């Protein structure tokens, strides 16, 4: 049994166990959920440490045939692209389980759904089988809808539930058609991703079918990742979701589409990818500039965070669109960093909501005085979101800009403006409104995170951001060799790219030089 099976299996087993625990044993239910996510986090840390960077093929592999006649098997394994994502997923899942104390009704059902969602997400990232990749994502997606519907907040809860359900189902189903078409067109009669990649390298798909399938995957996955102009579900959905759900969805589940683009769409359809990436680069400007501008107009803290999370997706798309080693590496780093960040901000806003019952920024103010821990954490999260050096987001964004500069100078210039100006503007303004200024009379009774359990999830997420921000090599040394492999396939189909041999030097040089200059600019 691979360690990956345990990582994704523990939450699912715990969910099954909870089915048989009576609903009024609240402490036991919480303990089971916390324990399962904690064990799977420890295992993921162990796996991350044991992972050997740059080794050929996949590590911690396991394969069990499932439907032989169709070539479907349960196949898990990690390489540099998903090892960090799985680690991030388990940390966020544990933090979300810690934050679930805000749920006061029907806890049993909530924890079951949360655990199913966790297992599904981790499985989707670990899966090396196209079918299970989709299957487990869908398994994680459906609890999201139910959780928003039942435990969501706000007057527009029902509207938000149906909007997010319909949007994401459309996206997932479009991607499903693309995946099935890919399987059929390849002629390899297998859903196994490594085998499929090998087969397609030997027998590339016809340009016509690439041009038909690639947009299906791009827009199917794009809807799931809130690519502009298909992003409208995200702010409202996250605004209405209970915070553990928003943490898991915005932090982890949303990265599925991006991961799918890098893992499946790029290496299997290189020609179509090169063609469509030009368009993607311009679409991601919509995320960065337009949604950033929308975020500036928000008066509700959760809607602002939701919009800013959509805006951050633009950087990842830009990194992928650059199709070079630096850009794609940066994209994966942001995926991980943004996972921690989104979970942190949604967790903190959930805490504030539980204390005050509102997230309207006009009614809040001066909270830093009453909530020193939460306030500081929120401020740090906001600064991380603006791309302050020292946090992992900075590393990713800088790397993406360096990668993208070579390919799309104009787009990168505009995006930089959006990242530095717009992002800083709305984030800092929101912090001023929420944390500083006079404290309204009615909030004098609120209390800070008092004990270790309350502080733990936020501290854990902040620590992860700082660790990967100060030692980005932990991630980049793992990501670059495998991103290089994927880009090598792209290079074979005729576009000049940076050679994998020169990447490491260049990357280190760039990031260190840039971190100095960026610090000076600020």
């Amino acid at each position, binding site marked *: 049994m691979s360690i990956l099976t345990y990582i994704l299996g523990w939450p699912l087993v715990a969910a099954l166990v909870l089915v048989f625990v009576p*609903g009024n044993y609240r402490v036991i239910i919480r303990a089971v959920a916390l324990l399962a996510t904690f064990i799977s986090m420890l295992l993921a840390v162990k796996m991350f440490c044991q992972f050997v960077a740059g080794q050929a093929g996949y590590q911690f592999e396991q394969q069990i045939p*499932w*439907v*032989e*006649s*169709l070539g479907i098997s349960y196949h898990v394994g990690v390489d540099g692209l998903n090892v960090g994502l799985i680690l991030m997923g388990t940390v966020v899942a544990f933090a979300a389980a810690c934050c679930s104390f805000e749920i006061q009704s*029907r806890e049993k059902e909530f924890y079951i759904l949360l655990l199913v969602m966790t297992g599904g997400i981790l499985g989707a990232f670990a899966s090396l089988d196209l*079918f299970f990749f989709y*299957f*487990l994502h*869908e*398994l994680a997606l*459906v609890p999201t*809808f*139910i959780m928003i*519907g*039942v435990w969501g907040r706000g007057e527009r809860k*029902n509207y938000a*539930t*149906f909007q997010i*359900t*319909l949007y994401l*189902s*459309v996206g997932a*189903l*479009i991607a*499903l*058609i693309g995946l*099935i*078409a890919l*399987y*059929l067109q390849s002629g390899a009669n297998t859903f196994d991703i490594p085998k499929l990649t090998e087969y397609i390298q030997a027998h590339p798909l016809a340009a016509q079918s690439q041009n038909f399938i690639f947009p299906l995957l791009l827009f199917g996955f794009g809807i799931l990742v809130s690519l502009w102009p298909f992003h409208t579900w995200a702010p409202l959905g996250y605004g209405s979701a209970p915070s553990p759900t928003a943490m898991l969805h915005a932090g982890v589940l949303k990265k599925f589409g991006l991961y799918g683009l890098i893992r499946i769409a790029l290496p299997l359809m290189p020609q179509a990818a090169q063609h469509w990436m030009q368009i993607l680069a311009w679409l991601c400007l919509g995320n960065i500039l337009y949604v950033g501008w929308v975020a500036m107009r928000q008066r509700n803290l959760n809607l602002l965070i939701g919009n800013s999370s959509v805006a951050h997706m633009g950087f990842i798309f830009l990194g992928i669109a650059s199709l070079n080693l630096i850009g794609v590496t940066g994209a994966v780093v942001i995926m991980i960093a943004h996972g921690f960040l989104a979970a942190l901000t949604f967790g903190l806003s959930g805490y504030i909501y539980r204390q005050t019952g509102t997230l309207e920024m006009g009614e809040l103010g001066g909270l830093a005085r009453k909530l020193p821990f939460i306030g500081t954490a929120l401020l740090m999260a906001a600064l991380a979101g603006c791309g302050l050096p020292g946090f992992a987001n900075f590393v990713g964004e800088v790397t993406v800009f360096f990668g993208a500069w070579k390919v799309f100078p104009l787009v990168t210039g505009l995006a930089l403006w959006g990242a530095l100006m717009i992002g800083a503007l709305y984030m800092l303004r929101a912090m001023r409104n929420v944390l500083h200024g006079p404290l309204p009379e009615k909030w004098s009774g609120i209390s800070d995170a008092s004990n270790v359990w309350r502080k733990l999830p936020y501290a854990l997420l902040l620590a992860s951001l700082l660790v990967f921000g100060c030692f980005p090599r932990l991630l980049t040394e793992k990501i670059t060799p495998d991103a290089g492999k994927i880009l090598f396939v792209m290079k074979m189909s005729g576009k000049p790219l940076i050679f994998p041999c020169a990447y490491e030097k260049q990357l280190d040089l760039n990031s260190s030089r840039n971190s100095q200059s960026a610090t000076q600019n600020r």
Partner: protein
Amino acid sequence: MNLSLISLEIWVVALGLVLMLADFWMPAERRRFLGYAAAAALAVLLVMNLGHCATGTAFNGMFVQDGLAVFFKRFFIVAAILVLFIAVEFSDRITSGISEYYSLIVFALSGMLFAASANNFAMLFVSIELITVTFYVLVSFQRGRLVSLEAGVKYLILGALSSAFMVYGIALVWGTTGKLNFNDLALVASQFAGNKIFLLGMVLVLVGLGFKIAAFPFQIWAPDVYQGAPTPTTAFLAVGSKAAGFVLLLRVLFTAIPGVSAHWANPLIIISGITILYGNLCALPQRNLKRLLGYSSIAHAGYLLLGVAALSASGQAAILYYLSGYLFTVLGAFTVICLVMRHLDSEDISTLAGLHQRSPLLATTLTLAMVSLAGIPPLAGFFGKFLLLKAVLEQGATNPGYYCLAFTALAGVVISLYYYFGVIRAIYWSQDAPADWSPILLSGPAKVTIAICIAGMFWIGLFPNTVLNLATEAVKTLGI
């Protein structure tokens, strides 16, 4: 002639007669337990049937026992066993003649068993009539309820009309080709591919089958009859009668006239697409749960027609697989409806409010059934839809219409999420206060039925290998 091939049918008919006769000696208050006896007898037959399945033909090739027939016979017996369990739970709402009700279910089952083996137009017509005529009675069995009678009359009129079309079609086919046996017809059918009278005859036969499976434009009866009929009847109609229509459709299209049906991709694509959209769109505003499932069953007929329209072996195997998952899903849903709405006249969705507190088991079952019908993993409906879509996309290279059909099916799935989730919403977070909060007590057999349905949904969804291999083996006899 080989009588041993039809031993299963003989036993089932005998069981039906025994049930009727038992009425004479059984005290009235104990008659409802006859349903368990009948289910047990069918279970014994099922187990006996699992052991040996001799293949061959009987009655001059009219009756064929092959892989497809065996697959569907097991399917029908499982469906009948579960329906009998539901019927026992329902028996307090049937004022008189409960043992007749059981025996009619068993007679309908025998019709379905013959339908699974029909290899001749005469056999096809007789088996369909056996199913339909028993269903006329089963639908209007609650003689005291006006809606039940209304449903019975509607089913009778439209059913008789479709039977008339079918007989006329069979007559035209026989008149032009001189063949009734499917295998004989297959040899000469392509010569008649341009013969308008032959084609008209075939179209009329398909009209009759389209009525059975409730495909557009012959779906008009389904919502009214589903709503009005007693719940066990509706359940059997949704599963057994629809599956019988599909096995006959498969035999007619792919055994009798393979050379002709190969050119029918476009009409099949159009019918399938419209059926999916019609069923799903009309289900949106429904408030009556049984009526909603009526429209949803039209939509599912459309999904199943995807496999027919694909005109390929993988499409046919997908139909068989999908039906297996559909069996447990729909019967699970109807069991819950039967138990929850026991003391209520209305079957409005709002009566589900508070169900999660009154009976968590029933709430979970209905939720799982809706989730499976919507096609969400890890339940049976997901892999079924996956296989159907795959079969359709496989043919995309030959006809771009298949791509349009796949997208239509997806649109249908997305629309359906709205009303399936509407049911789940009514269970868990409805605003209306329920009329009573009393917990729903479940009898032991009801729990067993529910457990079987849940296990079936998960088993077929999580371990598709067994059923898929059986289905793939079964459709090999169709010869495409």
